[in-house]
Each structure stands twice: as structure tokens, then as C-alpha cells.
């Protein structure tokens, strides 16, 4: 393990360079350049807040706030976006970098690290803007905001553990990638992101309690909408799964890393 970390440390230049390059390449040949990194998420936040709060006047049951539903929506969509980006990219990471893996010798775990780092970079831009909006509109949660960091840590390790496991399997069984695309859509709607969990019947709520993403996303929503600390005890399922998936993913990767190159 320490050898692994040392190898990653030795390639930190490559990791940072890759993140930088990925970030730059998106807006490489555009006139406004980096401005787009702000404009895109800004548009999204504006849509969610202005449209839902002002135009459609959607209200969250039990929350007396004009922006209540908008904040609820953003808290769920933004964090789900981080999850989906990491898992989505990790499951194709080995296929996308087949050439590099076949021709060059470098620590392979650089690739998932690059994915996490660049997803986090995108997330911090959009979430920074969102936090700014919360501050300006007077909805900043205060101290409970700190709870976002452990929540994010669980989310990220859950995503990468799942992503790597799928990524390795996807090399051998390409159906995984196709299947997971469909699965993710269902998963999104089976997670209380767009609708409040209280709007569901008792039976459906029990089904949803099996969804590890539900308590995690609810945690974010609790902090941002209710401005209180999340109920930590609800997080044991995602927390345990996050550990299990990371261990499983690493094991799978170690066992099949050699054979994987032959399949690419």
C-alpha cells in the first residue's frame, strides 16, 4: 500500500498535469475560454432557482422559504452529478486509456486519481457558485456546512470504489457499461433528489431505504435546506458500502490488472 502511494506521489506531476490538461482542453478552442467553466453551472443554478422558485412557485412541504425547493434540488442534483461523473468515467477509464496502458509503464492508479481530482475540480466550481448564492440569499447553513466534507468523502470513495469495480469488469464484459447507463437513470429517480422522500408512501420509503445513495443525498439536503447537522446514524449503509467497494475494487483491479492489458 505504501509502495502504491509512493508511486502515485512520484507521478504527482503527471496527475496534476492531466487534470489541468483535461480542464483546459474542454475550452481550448473557444473564445471565452475559462469563462465557460463558470457560465455553464451558473446557468444551471439560475434555472433551478429562478424557474422553480419564481416561475413555478414550487414549495417544499414543511419549509417556509421561497428558495426551499430550489436549494433542495441543487443539493441533490449537484452531488448526484459528482457521483455520476466519477462512476461514469471510472467505468470506462481502462478502455479509454487502452493505448497508454498497453504501451507505457506507469502506475495505473494514476488514472482513477485523475478522475477524482478533475471531477472534484468541476464540482468545487459549481458548488462554490452555489455556496455564494446561499450566502447572498441569506440561506447559508453556518456551522453544519462543515458536515459536507465527511459526506463528500463518503460520496467520493463510494463512487470510485464502485467505478473501479465496474471499470475492471467492463474490460472483460462490455455489457457492464451499457447496462450501467440504464441502471443509473433508474437509480437517479429512485433517489429522493427531485421529489421529497416525505411524498412517498410508507412501502416505497422502505424500498428506498435499501438505496445507499438515498441517506447520503438526504444528508446533503438536511445540511443545505434545513441547515442542521445530518443524522449520522443513517449513514452506516453508504459508509460500510463505500469501504467494501473500495476494498473489492482494489482487489479486483490487482487480480486482473495483468489480464486486463491483454484484453484491451
Amino acid at each position, binding site marked *: 500500500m505504501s509502495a502504491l502511494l509512493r508511486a502515485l506521489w512520484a507521478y504527482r506531476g503527471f496527475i496534476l*498535469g492531466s487534470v489541468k490538461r483535461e480542464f*483546459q*482542453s474542454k475550452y481550448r478552442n473557444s473564445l471565452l475560454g475559462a469563462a465557460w467553466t463558470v457560465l455553464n453551472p451558473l446557468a444551471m443554478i439560475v434555472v433551478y432557482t429562478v424557474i422553480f422558485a419564481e416561475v413555478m412557485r414550487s414549495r417544499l412541504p414543511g419549509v417556509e422559504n421561497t428558495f426551499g425547493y430550489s436549494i433542495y434540488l441543487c443539493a441533490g442534483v449537484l452531488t448526484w452529478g459528482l457521483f455520476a461523473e466519477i462512476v461514469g468515467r471510472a467505468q470506462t477509464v481502462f478502455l479509454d486509456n487502452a*493505448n497508454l496502458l498497453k504501451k*507505457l509503464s506507469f502506475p495505473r492508479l494514476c488514472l482513477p486519481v485523475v478522475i477524482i481530482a478533475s471531477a472534484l475540480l468541476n464540482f468545487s466550481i459549481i458548488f462554490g457558485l452555489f455556496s455564494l448564492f446561499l450566502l447572498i440569499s441569506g440561506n447559508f447553513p453556518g456551522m453544519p456546512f462543515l458536515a459536507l466534507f465527511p459526506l463528500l468523502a463518503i460520496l467520493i470513495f463510494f463512487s470510485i470504489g464502485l467505478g473501479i469495480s465496474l471499470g475492471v469488469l467492463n474490460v*472483460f464484459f462490455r455489457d457492464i457499461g451499457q447496462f450501467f447507463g440504464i441502471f443509473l437513470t433508474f437509480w437517479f429517480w429512485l433517489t429522493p433528489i427531485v421529489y421529497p422522500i416525505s411524498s412517498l408512501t410508507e412501502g416505497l420509503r422502505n424500498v428506498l431505504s435499501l438505496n445507499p445513495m438515498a441517506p447520503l443525498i438526504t444528508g446533503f439536503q438536511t445540511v443545505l435546506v434545513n441547515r442542521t447537522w445530518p443524522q449520522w446514524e443513517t449513514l452506516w449503509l453508504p459508509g460500510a458500502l463505500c469501504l467494501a467497494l473500495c476494498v473489492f475494487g482494489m482487489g479486483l483491479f490487482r487480480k486482473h490488472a495483468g489480464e486486463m492489458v491483454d484484453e484491451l
Partner: protein
Amino acid sequence: MGAITVTNLGKAYKQYASRWSRLAEWMDPRGRPRHHLHWILQDLSFTVNAGEALGIIGINGAGKSTLLKMVVGTTQPTTGNVQITGRVAALLELGMGFHPDFSGRQNALMAGQLLGMRVEEVSALMPEIEAFAEIGEYIDQPVRIYSSGMQVRLAFAVATARRPDVLIVDEALSVGDTYFQHKSFDRIREFRAQGTTLLIVSHDKASIQSICDRAILLNAGKLAMEGTPEAVMDYYNALLADRQNQSIRQEVLANGKMQTISGTGEAEISNITMLNEAGQSLAVIDVGQVVTLRIDVQVHKDVEQLVLGYGIRDRLGQTVYGTNTALQKRVLTSVVAGSRVRFDMRFSANIGPGSYSIQTALVSSETHLENNYEWRELALMFEVINVNKPLFAGVAWLNPDISINHLA
């Protein structure tokens, strides 16, 4: 630093009967294998000492690239292992990981980091990289507008910016123009002189012979031969011709050199000598001396066409001159079994001092790849000395008439 030890190396790919068999194998709790192994390389053992240069030769599909990939470490061996000491640089595929939208400088930086260098290190080497790649102000233009030659030059410059302990080269050098090929080869030679261990895969006889101390021949995934580049290259050429049931044998000559003879055997050379104008056999020739190369051929089976080819090669195995009776429009047709044919080739030996060998071929047409009756390396050895000519350099005797005029 720089030694390579390959022990019992083998590589096999798993082959499954169908896509579902792999799933079945993974799911099977008893772990019963449902694949069979397809062996690419087997039982390969050799060592390369620090500072040595080893050439790897073999026809396409012999397993050369797989071997290099295992030495570099991208592919994991199925059996055995590879041990390398020191820093390794590989020129397997140049321009890997270049992003078309970024400038040459940015890509060079990135490629350097991918090779494990730190940013400051690459930045410090950047002037040298720029100078070697010779792409001028294009260095700050996006790589997408580069010619393929420019990309290769830049990639080579980055890959060889630092002298590695072990350099692994896979025919990457056959790209680029002649000038750059020479330049990159000079750099490899320079590294070699400074103690870098070399591992080269190439089909180019000249580069293997001029730079390698030793060579190994891979054939069908096995180590077919190991020896001097010259002997291995000769055997390889014979193998190339060996697509039609021919025999190959190598004999050690009196001087310790290895003679390779191959062919289908319809005709063979029974005698070969070099004669002076008085008809006496020669082993040493004076520069410019008129000599006759006499080759007697014994025909064992009826052949429709008989062409004799010969080449004079210098001590490095490079052909100084070669021709055949088809090129000279003297093809023999309908030669019957049992006949003996004498070929006398009279020429002036306008070649420089040194040791030469003659290689012969008995074939049915100009190329030796089709109907190769007999192919013989080192059929005859001779020395050329300079007895009475002014001292000169090189392998050719191109004596000039010099006229000097004072113009002012």
C-alpha cells in the same frame, strides 16, 4: 546498473470458446478453467549485461513486440520473470499520449511527466529537447498542425532527453526522414558509448549489425538462435527463404565464422574460388587487381530456370556489390539433372582494403524468396590489401584524376 535478466519467460493469452465461457469461469465456485492458453512466447531465457547491445530479430508474429512489452513492464508475463536494474526508457511507440490541441511544449512537458520526470526536470531539459527536435517555432503551435515527422521528432527528443540505463527501441526509428534517422541513431550510439544497455528490435540488417554486440532470433515464440549479429542475421535471411520445405544448416568454417546454407537443393555450389589472371587461386587481392570469381554449380534435378547471384560483403556484412545472372541477362533455361555449370565472373577488385566475404544464391528468378535452390552465406572469404596504390579510406576504390588550376 542496466543489466537485463530474462528467465523462463512465457506469455499466453486466454482464449475462451464463447463470450459466456468467461462469465461461467468467473462464476464457477470450484474455479474450473474454461479457457485454453494460446502461447505467444515460451521458455525464453537470456541476459543482457550492462552496457551491452542486443538485437532481437524475427519475422512478424514471432513475439518480438510481446517480449519488449514484458521487458518494459506493460504486459505481465504468464511464466517466468524479467529483472532490470536502473532506469528504463522505451521507444515503443513515439508520440503516445500527445493531445492534438495542445502545443508541442505542453505535450513535451506532459510526455516527460508520463515518463516519470518532474516538471522542473523537463523544463530544464526543454532547450535541449527543442534543439534536438528541430521544429523551430512550431514548438508553441498545437500538435494537430504538425507533420507526422515533426511529431516523431519531438517525441523522440523527449523520450531520450535523459540518458537511461536501459534503452528499448522497437523499430521506431524507421520513421522520419533519412536525416533524422541518422540523427536519432547517432544519439543511440552516443548513449551506448556512455554505457547504456540497448535492446533493439529491427528488421534493418544494417542497424542491427552496426550497433549490436549480440543478437537473438525469435521464431514462433521460441528462442531459435543466439549469436553474433552477422550469424543470426544470415540465419534469419535463410529462414525467410524457408517457406518451402527447405533445409537450413550452419557450419563453422576454419576461421571460426558460421556459414549458413539453406535451400531446396535442386542445385548446389560444388566449388568456389577467386583466381588471378594466371588462373591461380587467391586469398589476398590487391586493390584494383583484375580477378575472376569461379563458381561451379552441380545440378541435381531438372530446373526450368537457373540464376546465379552473388554479393560481396564487407566485414560488417554490408553488401558492397551484388548482382545476378538475371540482372545481367544471362539466365540459363531448361537445365537437366546431372549437369555441371561453371560460371566465371571477371572484374576489377576496385574495393578498399579489408576483409570481405562472398554470398551466393542459386534461384529461379531475381529474388531469392521464390524457388531458392541454395543460399549460402560466407561462401568464400578473401582479403583486400593495398600494395601499390596511394593510401585511401573507405570500401570503394574510386581513384580520381586530379587537376588543379590556380584561378587567381
